[in-house]
């Protein structure tokens, strides 16, 4: 289902990247896989860095989920 909403207090329980540029994904607990915003390389890498920190620390985060793409993060 495509939706746009804030996902609050979710944890990152999985991360995925492949050999394709701008193709990183995060698994949000209770939500599923969401693509890390791929607007630019810098955006993708900074957001992936924040998501990696959140997963490593087990910190609940809030993300803006726009059509299955993570476009904003509070961690």
């Amino acid at each position, binding site marked *: 289902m495509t939706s746009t909403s804030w996902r609050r207090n979710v944890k990152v*329980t*999985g991360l995925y990247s492949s050999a*394709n540029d701008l193709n990183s994904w995060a698994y949000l607990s209770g939500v599923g896989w969401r693509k890390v915003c791929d607007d630019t390389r810098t955006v*993708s890498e900074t957001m992936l860095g924040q998501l990696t920190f959140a997963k490593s620390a087990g910190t609940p985060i809030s993300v803006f989920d726009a059509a299955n793409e993570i476009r904003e993060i509070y961690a």
Partner: protein
Amino acid sequence: MTTSNGMPTITDTQTDELPEGGPSEGFIADAEAVSVADAPPELIPPEESAAAGERGVTAWLTNTRIIGVWSNSSNKNSFINIKDVGWRRLNPAGENAVVAMTMLASHARADDRNVTVRVESDNLVHELYVW
């Protein structure tokens, strides 16, 4: 050659090369021509499904660990040491892809997390999950 803790040493000539003690030179294929579809991940975290990780495909290394990471001053020249497998290069087809996979591999290494890795016959890492 490796240091006493098993990590690869950095050579004087910082070229696009393998970590010392790694596979032979013929190991690196023409990675620029290698790519995978820009597709979403297929697996889900093990805690989300007991069936996760059971792929039965030899190229998939499931529920393993990364015991070393290596890079040098060459672009897109990042390797990971997969437990019981050895050093494998992250597919250098894309700059962002190498950065992303290195970030994930470093997290897995630092926190000793389970990973699922797809290594193809070219001995390059094409996909990386960290759980």
